[in-house]
């Protein structure tokens, strides 16, 4: 084919090309690695490099021997450390998501309702922390929360406390870290959603006799629900698998699944169990989402 021919066929099929690119991306960088991890989770651990036995063996000529090991998943269930950690992770990420929502919702609302120039400044301020390294910001929190840190020193200086209170290496510190880090991910989708909100709907509710609180519950919340869901997922999902924040701010006191994963891979060099931990986490996160999508899809159909 001539160069001209290629360009012509590209022009004709550009739509399928454009669609193909993200699919290709997902295939190479998401689906393929996922299957590799999945395969490892069904293998047997060994002391070698890589530290697991091959799943497929060729016995004699032409006879394939596949060995699937479900022990790794069974192990997660039997050792209550894992179950406890999953529950603890989900609890921490749910509460953090809720706190992000409680702080982020009024913030997004205030940003949307402010004047155009102020709106841009406020949005900038929300995004600004991204310009500093995430790790640096977590270290900064360590400096703030430490026993000899800024907050304790300040409280002692003004005489509110005599002894430093334990802030760092606690659940509190982890909540502060997660909420602080993920708040923009809550605010931005909420802002995008509220920006499109038809404010005359709120006036209509008020006109029909709804007090401000009723208007909020019966109109504002349902209308901003897509933003609430998007923001909550963007906070909840990464927060559940968070490793750095519980490690740096929680110390050994806060159990989260990211830490377990790290330990299995590095300290225990048990790749199959680590992979099983990762796959189980994925299921825990993805299944409810798929269920939600399914329900929503049905609702849209019935519309």
């Amino acid at each position, binding site marked *: 084919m001539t160069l001209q021919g290629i360009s012509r066929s590209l022009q004709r099929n550009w739509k399928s090309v454009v669609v193909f690119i993200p699919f290709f991306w997902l295939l190479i960088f998401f689906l393929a690695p996922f299957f590799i991890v999945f395969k490892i989770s069904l293998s047997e651990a060994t002391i070698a490099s890589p530290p697991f036995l091959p799943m497929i063996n060729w016995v004699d000529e032409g006879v394939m021997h596949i060995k699937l090991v479900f022990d790794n998943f069974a192990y997660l269930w039997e050792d209550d450390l894992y179950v406890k950690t999953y529950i603890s992770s989900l609890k921490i990420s749910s509460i953090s998501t809720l706190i992000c929502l409680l702080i982020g919702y009024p913030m997004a609302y205030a940003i949307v309702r402010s004047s155009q120039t102020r709106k841009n400044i406020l949005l900038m301020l929300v995004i600004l922390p991204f310009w500093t390294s995430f790790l640096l910001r977590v270290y900064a929190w360590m400096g703030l929360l430490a026993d000899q840190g800024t907050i304790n020193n300040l409280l002692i200086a003004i005489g509110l406390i005599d002894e430093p209170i334990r802030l760092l290496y606690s659940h509190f510190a982890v909540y502060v870290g997660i909420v602080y880090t993920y708040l923009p991910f809550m605010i931005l989708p909420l802002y995008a959603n509220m920006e499109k909100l038809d404010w005359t709907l709120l006036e209509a509710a008020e*006109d029909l006799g709804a007090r401000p609180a009723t208007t909020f519950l019966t109109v504002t919340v349902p209308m901003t629900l897509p933003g609430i869901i998007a923001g909550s997922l963007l906070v909840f999902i990464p927060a559940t698998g968070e490793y750095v924040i519980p490690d740096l701010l929680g110390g050994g006191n806060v159990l989260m699944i990211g830490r377990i994963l790290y330990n299995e891979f590095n300290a225990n060099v048990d790749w199959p169990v680590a992979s099983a931990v990762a796959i189980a986490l994925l299921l825990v996160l993805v299944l409810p989402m798929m269920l939600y999508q399914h329900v929503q899809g049905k609702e849209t159909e019935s519309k």
Partner: protein
Amino acid sequence: MPDPSQYTDRPWMDSDAEPFIKVQSVSKQFGSFTAVDNVDLDIYKGELFSLLGGSGCGKTTLLRMLAGFETPSSGNIFIDGVNMNDVPPYERPVNMMFQSYALFPHMTVENNVAYGLKREGFGKIEIKQRVDDMLAMVELTQFSKRKPHQLSGGQKQRVALARALVKSPKVLLLDEPLAALDKRLREQTQFELMNIQEQLGVTFVVVTHDQEEAMTLSTRIAVMDTGRFMQIGTPTEIYEFPESRLVANFIGNANMFQGRIIENGPDHVVVQSKQPECEIYIDHGLEIQEGHKVWVALRPEKIKISKQAPDEARANQVKGVVHDIAYLGKISIYRVKIDDDTLIEVTSPNLSRPKDGNLAIDWEDEVYLSWEASSSVVLSK
């Protein structure tokens, strides 16, 4: 003693009648911009009152102040004798139909209409009954389970109307109620609105930029410009006796002549116009001195166009040449050139068919324009 019953259709004529809505020297400023400029207005029970004006004239701001979405910068608004200044929208005895309809997209038609009743805390059975009645009135019973996005524009408009009326408000505010509908539907809906208004006896206040809509619907019209009322009156008064050039031009079309009063009798005035060069005899007296400059308005449809010279008469006629014709079927619009700077617009019904494809009056024909003594009106402002 005047008989009070003679005013039942025209309460604004009755000096004893108590206005239902009283707007008392109300102004509204947004920053340095004055949207509504010290206006007074009385609207009576059962009226269908229109606020008419172009965009930015302050009509919507005034309506929003009646609804309670804006607070007056100064002045008072009374509805049914109660000062509304400190009453929030959700406690006012008024309901509004929004220009965009503002139907709740996440609720069915039924729930949209029921929304206001639920806020009042009515029982389930009563709510159901009233919603059903209202939906039956606007002929939407079979659509009660639909969501707004499944409705046509006309259906949405009727849901909005039902939702605003279901609480039996004392006043219904309508913001450009027909603007989003196409022409045919608009005409039909105009009459529906009037029927409903008559049936329920609710006072309607309508904001519109469409003069035809205002003319058809209203008992009275207030023409607004730059935050003030230019004229308040019945559609006939506004059309036949405009007080200013702005009103004459805004409601329908008008030919304007500037002239000097040369004769001022008790029952007539004569105005000498320079452009076109003619005398205008008007059969109503004026409280203006002779020699004063005035504007005279003459509606295009009140002018007779003819190729024959009219009978001997000195006043109320000019001669010209047909410059332009717009043939609209039932009527034709002629633009007649009187002199280099003067075009007069005339509309004339096409009473007979053109013979052999020739128009009775054609381009470049020499024509005579004439009008009755009662046709023209001196603009007092």
